C-alpha cells in the first residue's frame, strides 16, 4: 500500500504467485523452518507408503498365539500386538490406505468446491444468496454425523469413503473460493474481460482461476490434514478401514485396551499418525506465508 507507483497492482489484491513461479514458491517454502520440516515429513510418509510393502519384515496379518503382546525385542523392534502380529510391520503399512483415500479425495474436493465457489462468486445475486444458505446448513451439521450415516448405510470401502470425503470436504471450499473470487471480481480486468464479450467460462478459466489458485492451494493443504484426521478418527471409532488391513487409527483403538501392560502398541501408530498430520500442517503454514495468504484468523470448520 505504501508503493505509489501507478503500474503496481494494489497490495490488497496480490498477483497470483504460484502460477508466476512455482519454483520460487517451493524455494520459499523450503527456506522456512516449518516448511522444510513439514515438507520433509510429508515426502517421507508418501515415499514410505509407496515402498513399504517391499521391505516390511513380517506379514501384516500372520497371527501368532505364542507371541501375543511381546515387548520390543531384536526380532520385533516395536513388539507384537494382541494377536501376535509384528507392530513395526503394521506401523510401516498403516498409512497407505489413509494416504490413498485422502490423496484422491483432497484434489477432488478442492476442484469441485473451488469451481462452485468461483462460479457463484462470479454470478452473484439471488442464486448465490440461496446456495450460501444451503452451504451454511451443511456446515452446521457435525462432520462425523454426516460421514457416519453414509458409511453405516453404504459400507466403509474406499469406493464409499473417497466420494463421501470429497463431497463433504468440498463444501467449505465453496465458501473460501467464493470469498476469494469476490475480492477479484470487482477489479478492472474482469470488467474488461466482460466488455470484450468473453463468456463466463472463459472469464473463470483465464481470469479467476489463476487469481484464486493461491488461496485454493493453501485451502487444499488444510483440507488434506482435516480429511486425514476424519479418516483416522473413523477408523479409530471402528467405522473406517476394516481389519486385518493395518491402519494407524485402528491400531491405536486396538492397542488402547492393553495400554496398562503393553504401552508400546500405541506409541508406534501415535507417532506415525501425528508426524504425518503435523507435517502437512507445517507445510500448509509455510505455503500460506510463501503465497502471502493470512491464515491465522481461520479456525477449522
Amino acid at each position, binding site marked *: 500500500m505504501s508503493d505509489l507507483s501507478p503500474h503496481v497492482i494494489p497490495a490488497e489484491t496480490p498477483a497470483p504467485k504460484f502460477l508466476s513461479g512455482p519454483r520460487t514458491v517451493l524455494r520459499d517454502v523450503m527456506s522456512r523452518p516449518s516448511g522444510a520440516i513439514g515438507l520433509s515429513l510429508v515426502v517421507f510418509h508418501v515415499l514410505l507408503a509407496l515402498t513399504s510393502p517391499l521391505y516390511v519384515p513380517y506379514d501384516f496379518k500372520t497371527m501368532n498365539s505364542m507371541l501375543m503382546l511381546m515387548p520390543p525385542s531384536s526380532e520385533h523392534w516395536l513388539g507384537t500386538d494382541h494377536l501376535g502380529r509384528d507392530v513395526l510391520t503394521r506401523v510401516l503399512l498403516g498409512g497407505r490406505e489413509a494416504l490413498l483415500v485422502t490423496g484422491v479425495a483432497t484434489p477432488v474436493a478442492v476442484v469441485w468446491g473451488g469451481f462452485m465457489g468461483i462460479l457463484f462468486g462470479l454470478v452473484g445475486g439471488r442464486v448465490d444468496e440461496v446456495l450460501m444458505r444451503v452451504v451454511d446448513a451443511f456446515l452446521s451439521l457435525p462432520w462425523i*454425523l454426516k460421514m457416519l450415516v453414509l458409511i453405516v448405510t453404504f459400507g466403509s470401502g474406499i469406493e464409499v469413503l473417497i466420494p463421501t470425503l470429497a463431497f463433504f470436504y468440498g463444501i467449505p471450499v465453496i465458501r473460501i473460493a467464493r470469498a476469494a473470487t469476490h475480492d477479484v471480481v470487482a477489479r478492472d480486468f474482469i470488467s474488461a474481460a466482460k466488455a470484450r464479450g468473453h463468456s463466463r467460462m472463459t472469464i473463470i478459466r483465464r481470469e479467476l482461476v489463476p487469481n484464486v489458485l493461491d488461496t485454493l492451494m493453501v485451502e487444499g493443504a488444510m483440507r488434506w490434514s482435516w480429511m486425514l484426521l476424519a479418516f483416522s478418527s473413523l477408523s479409530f471409532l471402528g467405522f473406517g478401514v476394516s481389519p486385518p488391513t493395518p491402519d494407524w487409527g485402528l491400531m491405536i483403538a486396538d492397542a488402547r485396551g492393553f495400554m496398562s501392560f503393553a504401552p508400546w502398541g500405541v506409541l508406534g501408530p501415535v507417532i506415525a499418525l501425528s508426524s504425518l498430520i503435523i507435517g502437512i500442517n507445517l507445510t500448509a503454514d509455510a505455503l500460506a506465508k510463501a503465497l502471502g495468504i493470512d491464515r491465522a484468523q481461520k479456525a*477449522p470448520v
Partner: protein
Amino acid sequence: MLRMLLRRCFLGAVTVAIVSAIIFLGVELLPGDACTAFLERDAKGQMLENCRKDFGLDRPALTRYFEWAGNALQGDLGMSASGRKSIAELVGHRMKNSLLLAAVSLSVGVPMAIFLGVITGLWRDRPIDLFFSTVAILAMTIPEFVSATVLILIFSVWLGWLPGIIVTSASAPASEFFPEILLPVFVLAMVMMAHILRMVRSSVIEVMAGDYIQMATLKGVPYWRIVFSHALPNALLPAINVVALTIAWLLGGVVVIEVVFNYPGLGRMMIDAISDRDLPVVQAIALIVASVYVGVNLTADILTMVANPRLRTLNMRGG
C-alpha cells in the same frame, strides 16, 4: 443496527429450516426406514406394512416433514424406533452431560487461552511465545483421540492420578462426574485453547502495530495502560467469533472424546443411534446439534456487532 440484527436472526432461522429439510431428505433418501431397522432388514409383507402404519410412514413425505418439524418446534422430538421411548426424555440426560463437559472445558479454556494469547502476542518471539505457540500447533493438529490416548497413558496408566474411563451412569447428578471428567476436559480445553490463543496472539500483534498505539506511546501513556485500555478492547473483539467457531467444533470433536472416555453424552448417543439405525433419534440429535451451531454463531455475530464501536456509530448516523 436493529435492521442488521433482525436480518441476521432471519438468516439464522432460514439456515435452521434448510438444515431440517436436509436432515429429513437425507434420511428419506437413504435405503431403509425406521421400520426396516426396527424389524430387522429382511422383514417383509404384512408386518412391515402394519409397522409403517403404526409409525405413520405410509403418508406422503411432505406431510410427515411438516409434522416432524412442527412437533420439533414445540419440543416434541418423537419416539425412538428401538424401544419406542420419548426421544426428548432420552436426549435430556445426555444433553445435560454434554453441556456439563462443554461448560467446564469452556470456563477453563477460554480465559486461559485469552491470557496466554495476550502474553504470547505482547512478548512475540521470546522463549515463552515460542513455547506456547509450538504447543498450540501440536494441540490443534494432533487428532483428539491420539492426544486423549497419550494423556490416559501418562496420567492414568503411568502416574495413576486420574481415572482414564468414566463409569458414572448417564442420569447421575453433575457432581458425581468429578474427578473423572477432568481428563476429557483437559483434552477439550487444550484443543480449544490452541485455536483461541493463536487468534488472540495474531490480533494483539496486529493491534499493537497500529498508529494509535504508537501515538499513545509517544504521548507518554504508561505501557500497561496502552495494553489494557487501548489495545485489548480492539484485539479481543475478533476473539468472539473464534470462541463461537470453537464451540461449534466442540459439537463434533466431543463425539470422539466421549467415545474415548466412555462419557455418557449426546455424542456417544449419536454414534449408538447411527449404529443401531435408529433414524428418528439420529434426526433429532442432528437437528439439536445444528440448531446449537447456528445459535452460537448468531450470538457471536450479534455480540460482535454490539461490541464494535465502529459499527455502532456507523449505524447511528443512519447507515
